[in-house]
């Protein structure tokens, strides 16, 4: 197990409800210590890379299918 700090740009959020929806989506996909700035769309959180593949974060349910939220991984430490 290795904890990785991820920075992700989120597109499509317009209000605090959106922030909550995206946060919950990230949490249910294995993210913790989630912090999202609505204005910049930047999210930072921790993942356990033995459980969550950083390369697959863009395709977790909250960013897939009919969802109008899009996420783009910008940095993984």
């Amino acid at each position, binding site marked *: 197990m290795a904890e990785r700090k991820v920075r992700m740009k989120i*597109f499509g959020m317009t209000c605090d409800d959106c922030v909550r929806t995206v946060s919950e989506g990230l949490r249910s996909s294995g993210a913790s210590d989630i912090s999202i700035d609505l204005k910049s*769309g930047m999210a930072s959180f921790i993942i356990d890379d033995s459980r969550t593949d950083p390369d697959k974060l863009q*395709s977790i349910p909250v960013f897939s299918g009919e969802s*109008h939220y*899009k996420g*783009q991984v*910008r940095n993984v430490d």
Partner: protein
Amino acid sequence: MSIDKPEEFDLIILGRGAAAFSAAIKASELTSGQATIAMTGTGPLGGTCVNVGCVPSKYLVEAAKSKIEGERQTYPGIIRGKGSLKFDELMGSLRSAVESERTEKYENVIRNYPNIKVFDGRASFTDPFTVEIINGNGRESIRGFNFLLATGSSPVVPDIPGLADAGFLTSNNIWEINRIPGRLAIIGGGFIALELGQSLQRLGSHVTIIKEHSSISKVMDPEFQMAMINTLQEEGVEFLTGVSVLSVKRTATGKVLTFASGDRKIEREFDEILISRGRKPNVAGLNLEKAGVEFSERGVRTDPYMRTSNERIYAAGDVVDQRYQLETLAAREGSIAVSNIYSPEKMKIELNLIPWAIFTEPQYASVGLTEKMANDMGINCTCRTLKIEDVPKGRILHSHNGLFRIIADPENGKVLGIEILAPYAAEMIMEGVHLIRNGSNLQDLVQTTHVFPTVAEGIKLTAQSFFRDMSKMSCCME
């Protein structure tokens, strides 16, 4: 001394043409207008297609067609006479049409996207995240996370002694002329040469197409190439093939070309020269090495997802190293590139489903494999060819030199490709796109009723010719 921090963008698009606009708009849609996008480039918005490509060339093609149709004695009893031409007026209207199209479909459209910022100037990479934009006002650096290379292409100008001094036209600047050239030499014989050559011949020029090789295209089947050349020759266009231009010299009365034909040297005087040797991808000056993007003089290398060797940088359109340079392909690739940047569902470009056309008369259109391509690629195929004279509507139109060809898989009859040289070929080829996209076979096509009499019926008749002797079939036979 303080240094301004470079403005930052989610996506920087190098280019302002069809690929760039398609990408910028699609990226805006995908991100709910929240992706900050920069578009950089020089010249009028819209790039090649609207300004110096498809739009003006098709305007000229249709204008010339209108003139010739007014003069041609196609049907007995319909008496027509030679029309007159005000070429300067025609070219003025062409330029107005271009301006109107550019204003409506590019300049006005971009105003609807406050997240897109347009920069004037040439951009080049200074590091993998930064480009420097240089224009008459100085230099400015901007930084981005993703980039799209969509810088398009430029006419290839051969290195012929005396050419620059004598002066010449290309498909970029021919739209500015107001006097029709009397004797026009076209050096090179690509699609632009054929379209403009036929149109200018119809409008009154005496056109000579000068080519080193006898073929028009690397992918068109030779039979189609010959039929197209025959049509143009019947209209008076002269073809000089197997010759290379050695030099050009300006004289008091024109421009003298010296060319070699075998051991002979021939001199011919023309009033104007049009260079049509194809287009080269605009990679020079981008400093792609600094961004870690692999490229050659054939263009930027991408995978089918339009991603370059730098995974954050994509490319689309004429700048890509690929077999076609098409406006529709550029727009499709631009859209695919940004979809792959912002969406989890990854999309591939499928060149096999991209139709293309030459807007001569008759028009040529193709999708999928040609027989020549299948042979070159070692793909087993079976083909049938039908003449336009075997199609009732073709006979009604008094059309000739037209051909239909279907290329199919001999194992299962799946349609692999269609070539058409006929009136409305560019409109009809869409049937071929759907056939290939849906994996349809020859029987699917035969079992589909077509409207009678149409030129498009030729596609079905060609499919029927795989199974039947066409000379023993009645009209409209299912």
